[in-house]
């Protein structure tokens, strides 16, 4: 067995590819090793007044320590980026979340534990899931602070002005270290709802959370699951929480990613919970699918409607995110397609309608979370060899009609966020221009996306490609 472990480790050695074999977008997976102090960005055009404030983003950033390198996009330590948009200019700052793991590994000067998709030969045993929390998926506001979130452990609290880490979000002893997923949703009162997917215990569990806008726990519940499917996000409607137990199922393997197996013959499961008491209202089988992200949910005519960026398998996790993080050329994975689910509780059935658009990172006007409304997203993955988005898109989830602006090859568009403003508002997103080795942000006018950005700010500081964030107006 020792010999096998060594063989695997040698095969996985970092940077074995010659520079010529590394695709140009590999720049987005180089990573950074230190905090990034505030830097003035180069601005072109005028940022509209409603876009003044701060765009916060989180993502995997620290790829290597002591000659070892992570092998999966899920793994690197989270760094929160702040783009502060003011009257006089735009400034960028980046700071690593001081997780328990980050602090311990900084002191040790090496990786102490493996990652979700990486094994290190000299890894130490872990106490629990918190030992490997890298807080690298999302950053959202709560009670005057920011939450930097992972999905298999606690959320970390940050100071929005300094990005300093304040500690973990704690509830009580029972919930200490219990997974708190990375996609909480806010209701019209500002209460926060979330799930926690527990795949590492003998019986898979789903934890449901309801927090007040002050961050205090109002209620929680732990529900045993029929099978350990991967769950990343959920849908909130006026009355329900909808969870999709995917057909990417935990089995045996060397690490979390390796253990996830695609089971095409196992139907996925829609679970509908009542918001009032977290009771299960419906359990509906749907064709096998794999979903990271959902658009917002609404109720109409007694049915629940929502959109999902659906994959036809889980190659993105088992292949694409490995190869991208290893800075290898493709092929990677099939792009996701936007689909609309209509769930009838009366019939205990769901219809799935493809909307013919390859899209990820869905966003919407969070002031109206329960209305059918235009979705924003990052598109064009399907036509790019990198499987990274080059376009900003806006789509009507009922008709499928869309508008877009495609920057073309060389640009990676990250999660667009809706910013309220005159007319139809704005879309704000970060980007990587890997041909010019520049990172930046851009704002486009919703309704006139095809005109391209009205303002951009960029810098010769290259940021690792990240996942999710939020915009907080000044």
């Amino acid at each position, binding site marked *: 067995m020792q010999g096998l472990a060594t063989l695997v480790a040698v095969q996985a050695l970092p940077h074995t590819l010659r520079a010529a074999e590394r695709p140009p977008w590999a720049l987005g997976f180089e990573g950074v090793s230190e905090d990034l102090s505030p830097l003035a960005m180069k601005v072109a055009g005028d940022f509209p007044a409603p876009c003044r404030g701060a765009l916060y983003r989180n993502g995997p950033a620290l790829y290597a320590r002591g000659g070892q390198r992570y092998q999966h996009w899920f793994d690197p330590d989270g760094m929160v980026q702040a783009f502060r948009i003011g009257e006089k200019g735009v400034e960028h700052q980046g700071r690593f979340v001081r997780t328990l793991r980050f602090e311990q590994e900084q002191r040790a000067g090496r990786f102490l534990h493996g990652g979700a998709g990486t094994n290190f030969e000299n890894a*130490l045993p872990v106490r629990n899931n918190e030992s490997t929390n890298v807080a690298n998926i999302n950053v959202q506001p709560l009670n005057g602070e920011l939450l930097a979130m992972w999905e298999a452990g606690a959320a970390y609290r940050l100071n929005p002005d300094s990005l300093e880490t304040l500690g973990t979000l704690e509830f009580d*002893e029972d919930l200490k270290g*219990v997974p708190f997923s990375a996609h909480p949703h806010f209701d019209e009162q500002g209460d926060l709802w979330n799930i926690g997917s527990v795949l590492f215990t003998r019986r898979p569990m789903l934890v449901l959370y309801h927090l007040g806008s002050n961050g205090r726990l109002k209620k929680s519940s732990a529900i045993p699951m029929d099978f350990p499917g991967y769950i990343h996000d959920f849908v909130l409607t006026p009355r329900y929480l909808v969870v999709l137990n995917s057909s990417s199922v935990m089995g045996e393997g060397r690490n979390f990613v390796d253990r996830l197996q695609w089971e095409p013959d196992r139907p996925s499961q829609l679970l509908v919970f009542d918001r009032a008491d977290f009771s299960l209202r419906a359990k509906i089988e749907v064709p096998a699918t794999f979903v990271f992200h959902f658009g917002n949910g609404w109720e109409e005519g007694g049915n629940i409607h929502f959109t999902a960026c659906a994959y036809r398998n889980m190659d993105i996790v088992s292949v694409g995110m490995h190869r991208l993080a290893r800075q290898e050329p493709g092929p990677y994975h099939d792009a996701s397609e936007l689909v609309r689910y209509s769930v009838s509780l009366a019939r205990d059935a769901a219809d799935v309608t493809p909307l013919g658009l390859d899209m990820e990172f869905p966003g919407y006007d969070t002031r109206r979370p329960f209305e059918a409304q235009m979705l924003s997203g990052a598109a064009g993955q399907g036509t790019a060899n990198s499987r990274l988005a080059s376009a900003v898109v806006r789509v009507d989830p009922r008709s499928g009609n869309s508008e877009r602006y495609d920057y073309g090859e060389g640009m990676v568009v990250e999660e667009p966020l809706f910013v309220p403003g005159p007319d139809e508002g704005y879309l704000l997103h970060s980007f990587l221009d890997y041909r010019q080795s520049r990172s930046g942000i851009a704002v486009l006018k919703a309704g006139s996306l095809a005109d391209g950005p009205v303002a951009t700010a960029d810098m010769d500081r290259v940021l690792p490609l990240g996942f999710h964030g939020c915009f907080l107006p000044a």
Partner: protein
Amino acid sequence: MMRKTLLGLTSLVTLVQPVAAADLTILVSNIAEPSGEVRWLLFDSEASYKADDGAMLAVRNRVDGEQLKLTVHDLPAGRYAVKLFHDANSNGELDSNMLGIPTEGYGFSNNAGRFGPPSFEDAAVAVDADLQIEIRVR
């Protein structure tokens, strides 16, 4: 794992059997906070180790730093395994959350076991002469 089964004793324990006796020194490292105590159990058989019952020794030691050194004197030659936990709030239990996952530090001889507790076989050390081992609290 080892709730409420420990007695307060001293770390300098002398066992009476004189046959091929040796000293086992255990360096407990990576203690997260200087509070509470380390509670540890020494087992000489797989059966008692698995059952968490019938430990040769059940000892607790006050924590005042990141490390702790424990010595068992005059141990008969044989195979031994140690289980320990850091009872940081001195409530006598290895605290855990609603999932049953420990939230306080713990460790095993050989630093064995990646996620859950290791088998006796993996945790056991052979003591036939004076030996020092390190248990890194996870």
